[in-house]
């Protein structure tokens, strides 16, 4: 597992950890049931506070990317886990909601917004 923290980033440290672990799970770099470093080990390795790693892990857990076993540490959830998928969908929905709100403010129609989305998807 690779986690590289940037001091120059505007993203808080726990977010940086989260997004990197999330990406590793999604790309398959982190396999199902693989153990993650313990909270305190990770904190020490990255020279960050325990609370920061705790926040990153517990949010990842809520989002269904990892799971904790009492006293045994954190494991990677199966990629297709229901919770993870729901979480990802919820995020898409939330972002689309924001986009719809912004479109309304800008006076765009649904059709125009959908066109914009298609354009963005093509660029990506």
């Amino acid at each position, binding site marked *: 597992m690779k986690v590289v923290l940037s001091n120059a980033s505007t993203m808080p*440290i726990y977010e940086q950890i989260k997004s990197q672990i999330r990406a590793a799970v999604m790309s398959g770099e982190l396999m199902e049931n693989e153990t993650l470093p313990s909270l*305190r080990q990770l904190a020490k390795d990255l020279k960050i506070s325990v*609370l920061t790693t705790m926040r990153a892990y517990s949010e990842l857990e809520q989002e269904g990317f990892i799971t904790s076993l009492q006293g045994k540490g954190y494991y990677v959830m199966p990629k297709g886990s229901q919770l993870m998928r729901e979480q990802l969908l919820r995020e898409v929905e939330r972002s689309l909601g924001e986009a719809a709100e912004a479109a309304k403010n800008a006076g765009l129609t649904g059709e125009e917004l959908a066109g914009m989305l298609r354009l963005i998807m093509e660029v990506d």
Partner: protein
Amino acid sequence: MLKVKSISKDYGKFKLEDVSFHLPPGYIMGLIGPNGAGKTTTLSIILNFISKGAGDVSILGTDHIAGEAEVKKQIGVVFDSNVFVCDWKVMEAGRAMAIFYDNWKQKTFLEMLSLFGLDGNKKVGQLSKGMQTKLMLACAFAHDARLLILDEPTSGMDPPSRDELLELLQDYIKDGNRSVLFSTHITADLERVADYITYIRGGRVFFTGPTEELIEEYRIIKGGREDLTGDLRGKIHGLRMHTTGFEGLVSRRDVSREPAGCILERGTIDEIMIYTAREDEHK
């Protein structure tokens, strides 16, 4: 682990008022604040080195005065300067400490000395500040202290030694049963490793809680002179005007989104301290 409840101390000119904070086991807390804000007074009260005017301190559930001897067995203290007789050799400092702890482990002490590269035959008075700190740490480890209290341990240390010390502290709390409380005015060190921050300003607690909360609660605001409205001015702490604009600190509760023409950015603990201290000066 450590509960400090409403402690006060009246020195006439300087008052420590209603200082409370809580440090759970397994974490590091930084006690920050400008010089003379009451950091050392707070630590001295916890150690019953000076008597408190009011309030309660409990360590591992025991009152720090009623159960003083018991409590102190669990504490290791690292002072900001030498507390041993200068002519003592490092080994003699160890022998002096061993007098007071039934559970003193000479083996651990020797291991720590060699880990720290401390020469047992060197005189304590000839050690550098960093080495003196390490000697006191070795003593704390040798009696298996559960709570480590450090007074300004990083001042006067070069960056590599500071880094080394922080790594040691992280290692120390790794098993989740030990805690560290340290006072400092160099906060760059703390920024990342401290789980909790207690910020004392003018004898009062300005903030106590998770480090991230402190950083997230405030934003640095910058903008052009014309962007500074009267309403905004009232919300800015430690406002500084200069030829091309202004800068200051705002609470996110007061200013939640960027006012026109301004930018908001996350500040460091240092910056939060600088702006709030500037506010005190201008009062």
